[in-house]
């Protein structure tokens, strides 16, 4: 029997909460405050790491503000109302990925970017959040048991996206998209028999696939995992970022006092490597406080998700919770030198309009699953 009492909900809520307009607008104030805290902290770190460029901070602030407005609007929609749109958005992502492959933007060595003149973005950055959402929507489109064909269809959809990104070439992101696409499929209840047969298939097919890969593709894979080959100077970057974090110690060198970041020794310190600036200037304590807030946000995502009404909502929330955690872990692991360099920003902190807006939209989806009585 259900131990949930939907009707009691309003009765147990304190009176001021029911009447609080903020509660109505923002739906979950603790989550909202935590997000704001991370975003504002991100702006501070952006200021510190961009040679104190107010222009960059202003640009980022505009994206944050826009993202927050979209998030709030989205949070008031009923998930069912955009479920279909979300499902079909897979095709938009696929088209964008194909577009950058056949029509690479000039000025970049790899075809990852779409240049809209006023705004450039990487489709892969959109796809890695859009893909799991659309898969969740697809798997939950009907209120019945998921069929074998659906499992296979979604799995192929994920592998296709991953392959297109691999061709950009961006092996790191391709693996991330593969992982974040498989998470909702697994959480939706992918039968272990199918998982087992996938593993067997991969085991049998991989030597065949490998031998059929073109030389440049093999080279790409080998280069990525070979620490002796350092075409982009990643080794130097990692050493500098480790130096920054290590020299920050427990208490850090103080805001704007990090010599590694202020003197530009850390590459991409305002975007992918911003975590090393945090480590240098705020030390271990700063890192743990940030982790704590991130942890709280993730816990919030799951607690909202597990309270949600429909399978779709629960699947969406828990998938996004894992994906959010995944991105944080991959970014931090890369900056501290645990894994090879991948182009993943630190969620909500790193500079980059697409990343901020897409993440806030994801939180809009999460918040939309929360029912608030008024």
């Amino acid at each position, binding site marked *: 029997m259900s131990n949930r009492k939907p009707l009691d909900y309003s009765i147990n809520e304190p009176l001021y909460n029911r009447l609080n307009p903020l509660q109505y607008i923002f739906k979950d104030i603790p989550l909202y405050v935590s997000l704001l805290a991370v975003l504002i902290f991100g702006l501070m770190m952006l200021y510190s790491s961009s040679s104190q460029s107010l222009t960059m901070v202003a640009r980022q602030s505009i994206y944050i503000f826009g993202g927050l407005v979209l998030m709030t609007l989205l949070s008031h929609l009923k998930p069912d109302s955009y479920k279909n749109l979300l499902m079909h958005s897979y095709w938009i992502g696929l088209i964008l990925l194909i577009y950058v492959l056949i029509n690479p933007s000039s000025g970049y060595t790899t075809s990852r970017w779409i240049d809209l003149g006023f705004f450039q973005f990487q489709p892969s950055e959109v796809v890695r959040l859009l893909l799991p959402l659309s898969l969740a929507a697809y798997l939950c489109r009907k209120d019945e048991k998921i069929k074998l064909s659906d499992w296979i269809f979604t799995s192929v959809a994920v592998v296709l996206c991953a392959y297109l990104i691999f061709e950009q070439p961006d092996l790191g992101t391709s693996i991330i998209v593969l992982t974040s696409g498989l998470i909702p499929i697994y959480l939706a209840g992918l039968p272990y028999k199918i998982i087992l047969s996938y593993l067997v298939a991969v085991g049998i097919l991989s030597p065949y696939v490998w031998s059929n890969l073109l030389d440049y593709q093999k080279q790409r894979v080998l280069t990525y995992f070979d620490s002796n080959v350092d075409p982009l100077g990643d080794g130097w970057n990692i050493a500098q970022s480790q*130096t920054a*974090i290590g020299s920050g110690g427990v208490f850090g060198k103080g805001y704007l006092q990090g010599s590694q970041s202020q003197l530009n020794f850390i590459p991409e310190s305002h975007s992918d490597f911003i975590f090393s600036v945090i480590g240098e200037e705020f030390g271990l304590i700063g890192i743990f406080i940030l982790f704590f807030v991130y942890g709280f946000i993730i816990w919030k995502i799951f607690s909202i998700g597990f309270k949600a009404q429909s*399978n779709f909502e629960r699947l969406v929330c828990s998938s996004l919770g894992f994906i959010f955690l995944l991105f944080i872990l991959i970014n931090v692991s890369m900056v501290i030198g645990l894994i090879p360099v991948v182009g993943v920003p630190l969620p909500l902190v790193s500079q980059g309009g697409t990343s901020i807006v897409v993440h806030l939209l994801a939180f809009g989806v999460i918040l939309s699953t929360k029912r608030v009585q008024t």
Partner: protein
Amino acid sequence: MRDIQDLRKEEEGLKALKLRSKIIFFPFMILIFLGIFKIIQLSIINKDSYEAESERNRIIELPVYPTRGLIKLEDGTIVAENIVFHELFIERKLLDNSAEQINFLFTQVLGKQRPSSETDSFPKNKSELLIADNLTDEEISRFKIFSELMPNIKLRTSLRRYLPHKNLFSHVTGHLGPVSKEDKIIFSQSNYSNDALIGKVGIERTFEELLKGKAGKSFIEVDVFGNRIREINRVAPLRSKDITLTLDINLQRLARQELNSRRGAIVALDPSNGHIKAMVSSPDYNPNILNRSEFDIPLAESSLDEAPFFNRAISGSYPPASTIKPFIGLLGLEEKIIDASTIIEDVGFFQLKEDGRRYRGWKEDGHGKVNLEKAIVESSDVFFYELSSKLTIDRISSFLAKFGFGETTGIELLTETESILPTRNWKLGNIGETWFVGDTINIGIGQGYITSTPLQLAVSLSAIANRGIIYKPTLVTQDYGQESNQKTFASVKIKNQSHWEVIEKSMISVINSWNGTAHNLYKEGGTVIAGKTGTAQIRSLVDQELTVSEEYEGVRLNIKDRDHALFASYGPVPDPNLVVVVIVENGESGSAVAAPIAQKLIEEYQKSTDYEQ
């Protein structure tokens, strides 16, 4: 309304989701623990090494060179100073891409030709290339206006060594030059940058370490591109020392003016303390050209054949000629071979009993009956031929050695050469022959193997002026920690002190007596000067058929074969305060050419010291 069926289904779905969530969370947990462990390792366990690494990254150490010490005179006159120059340079690595900018600089901004020869050769050890030097204020402001168009070209200032009096002190101060391999062995290399100049000769060389000081360090914060952000710390350089010279600028100027670019040298020193008051070697050069602080003018006014870099005052070896006669006379008195009244007959030549060879005097008919005083006054060669033949070389050379003949004086100039004081062994070793009496006879009139430098002659003469006490000659007013602390370096003891007076009296008469060789200097009531003329032969006059003067007429056709004119003197007597030695190469007449210069110097010095009192 949902029915129970739906609710149960939903409940099961949630359970399954939570279970699967827990399963996925497991690998995540592993990554989280690994990450936290790695972060703790970085910022706690290995913190120190990363901290050091971060400091190494941001801080570079640059040497800070102190300003080179000044060279001054006692009255405060600046002899060598440092002045600011503006120069344009370009980094080596940017050079290849900068042809357009350099072209723009010279055609549009400076409006002059690029000096080609020196700039095109690019020394390997240098990281920067000088492309324009000695910019005027107008050129600097024009450059600043257009500097954005020439980002590779940088303006900088440098201090250069400058002698306001140009040539006047050239042989004393010397000049600077690039650091050579030998210099790197002698001096601490860390004290010199790649394009540093180092003292090459003269005072600049001797006191290089003091004048240079010791480089300090500046710790500068740099960013990843090597741009300098700020200075963090500084180890102050060891201050350089100023050097004060003993020279008197008026004497120095007068001496240079009197030599008037003729080849020669003048040394004037104070016999009571060894202080050099004037030291001029002519012709001279302009050290500023070599110090790179003056441009577009010739290095020396004379041709290089005349050796303008050669410091004749300390390195020129000349026969002392007749100026040695007072010393030989003194020895004769001391050895009781003669006394003040001993008279010999000068018939124009001296004939050796052994082989009958004749040694001619400069005066064909001889000086008649001569005693010691007359022999010095009229410079009788025959008197000293006979005297020296009796003295023997052994006694002569050991006596002259006491006066500093054959030695360096130890002055603070490293290029000083030893004069030659021959002995039997010296001749055997250097010429490979045994000593002949004829050699001794030549020495008696300061010819033959014996040589003196002008400085050594002045120092030796100061012994007579000072009654036997010789002070080590010096160019600096105080002991700057050079090796010898002794001021007195010799004391000539003689048996009978009155012999000093006999010699001095004779030397005074050289000027004051109507028959003196330098009587042309005599002025009624003028400063009393003791002196001795000398005429140093370059070529031996050996033709027995001709008289000395007839033979010399042939020799003097070649200017370089003409006799050197010497005058060694001191004054005023009594209480002399200046010993002056003047040598004019190929000047022919000690009395007419060299002596008046010495007299002017002594009189000029009297004026200035009287004025001081």
